[in-house]
């Protein structure tokens, strides 16, 4: 545990000494928190909202709780769409940090002395994973808390607030989001340990965002509608995937190749 903690602290000290990295970590949660609040504020009026319902997917309008008017339904729509952003945030934020973490050490030649210590591959990767995923998860949770508080102030309707604090979304943000973060970081670590150029690592790591983007667009276009069962299923699948990808990351981390492929 001491070694894992050491790796986490080292990564944070290195990463957050770079002001631009700190800014890029904080920017996305700030933006994703402010944007829905602004839209909720601007479009919360009944007349504007009535216009919106016409553009909503039919499937979505159908599930608006009975007795909810068009304005409230629009607000529920907005709230629901942006909840997906809070699931995406922990997936996107840590990717660049994780993608750089192994290949970056390779290029600065600090990986060899690190691998010469008695640290195991599992300890190294778990340390690097938690170092990249934890700030993203915390930033997401903080953003969500600010978003929830802002929405509570802006939104009048108890039914909209009920939709906002729907247990399904709370599970999505509090449980599924972090599981996604761990998955994306593990995937990025695999990429980072297999390539020799940090730019390639970042580009390839971005692939992990695609499946969630598909879910996002599918929900906006009404092809699917995320419900409680789907979130629980996602959670269960992600737990399995996290374990599997961590196992793969450890297996694919070949010290010898990493050291000898150095130019």
């Amino acid at each position, binding site marked *: 545990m*001491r*070694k894992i*903690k*050491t790796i986490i602290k*080292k990564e944070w*000290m*290195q990463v957050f*000494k*770079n002001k631009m990295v700190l800014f890029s970590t904080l920017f996305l949660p700030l933006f994703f928190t402010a944007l829905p609040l602004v839209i909720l504020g601007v479009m919360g009026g009944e007349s504007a909202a009535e216009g919106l319902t016409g553009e909503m997917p039919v499937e979505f309008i159908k599930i608006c709780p009975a007795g909810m008017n068009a304005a409230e339904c629009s607000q529920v729509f907005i709230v629901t769409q942006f909840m997906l952003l809070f699931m995406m945030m922990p997936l996107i934020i840590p990717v660049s940090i994780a993608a750089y973490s192994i290949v970056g050490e390779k290029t*600065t*030649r*600090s*990986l*060899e*002395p*690190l*691998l*010469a*210590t*008695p*640290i*195991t591959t599992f300890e190294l990767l778990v340390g690097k994973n938690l170092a990249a995923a934890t700030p993203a998860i915390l930033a997401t949770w903080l953003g969500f808390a600010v978003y929830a508080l802002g929405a509570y102030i802006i939104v009048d309707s108890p039914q909209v607030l009920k939709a906002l604090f729907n247990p399904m979304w709370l599970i999505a943000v509090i449980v599924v989001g972090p599981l996604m973060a761990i998955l994306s970081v593990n995937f990025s670590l695999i990429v980072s340990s297999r390539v020799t150029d940090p730019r390639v690592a970042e580009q390839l790591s971005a692939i992990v965002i695609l499946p969630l983007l598909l879910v996002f667009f599918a929900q906006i276009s009404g092809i699917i509608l995320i419900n409680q069962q789907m979130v629980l299923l996602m959670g269960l699948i992600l737990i399995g995937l996290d374990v599997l990808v961590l196992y793969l990351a450890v297996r694919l981390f070949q*010290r*010898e190749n990493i*050291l*000898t492929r150095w130019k």
Partner: protein
Amino acid sequence: MIHTENLTKKFQTTLAVDRLTLDVQSGEVFGFLGPNGAGKTTTVRLLCSLIAPTEGRAVVNGFTVGHQDQQIRRSVGILTETPGLYDNLSAEYNLQIYANLYEVADPAGQVEKYLRMLGLWDRRQDEAGTFSKGMKQKLAIARALLHEPNILFLDEPTAGLDPESARLVRDFVSELRSEGRTIFLCTHNLDEADRLCDRIAVFKTRMLVMDTPDRLRAQVFGRRVVFHLLHATPELADQARQAPNVKTVQLVDNKLVLEIDNPDENNPQVIRHLVNAGAEIQYVGELRRSLEDVYLQLVRNAE
């Protein structure tokens, strides 16, 4: 402390280390010499359990490479070819990281001990990236020693350093030897190897030769004795050729350079012979070839 038997490493079609067999004794400074690409760094990586051998066996500090890798990594220190420091972290924090990774009992105490010992204590809060090359090298040496390993692998410890820094590092290595640590020193600096090493191995994918520097000189060039005479003449050179146990004679200015079998025993006889022949001997000494000559000769022979 280090024992290898037919240790071999192949990278796909490239043979990097070919059937290396050696023994390094406790407390010995062992020089590992060879040209670029000879496989020195690969050998160090094998012995530090960073990479696995293709064939053969290596035992380091009683632990077998490929089977007890964690124990080996815990018990040896390594100075890699490049310092590999975290440039945006302080010197002190750079060491603290490694003290924790090596699970040192008193990390702060060990960090302070080595920062002071290497004269970096006053700069401990400065980022490692602001250090000169020599200071970075010293910091990397401190990092390799934090867990008090009894075997230390130093890969080109003075490469690229100015003479003053190189000397500081060399003095420090001597100090480590006096503490009884075993040091495996890879270097291109033959003068350094000559001064520091008890034994050296000349290596180019395979072991070319391994012995003490003096024995290697004798092995490669034979032992030559220089007689400084008041007046060296061709006649005296002819007389010298007839002396017992003399293999070759060269006349250079007022000197006779003689290759003699076992000069420790036979020199008095040769001196008597030359004096009887009328030579006025000013002084006698052994011609000491540089280790560079020995090394170049061996590498040339290998080619």
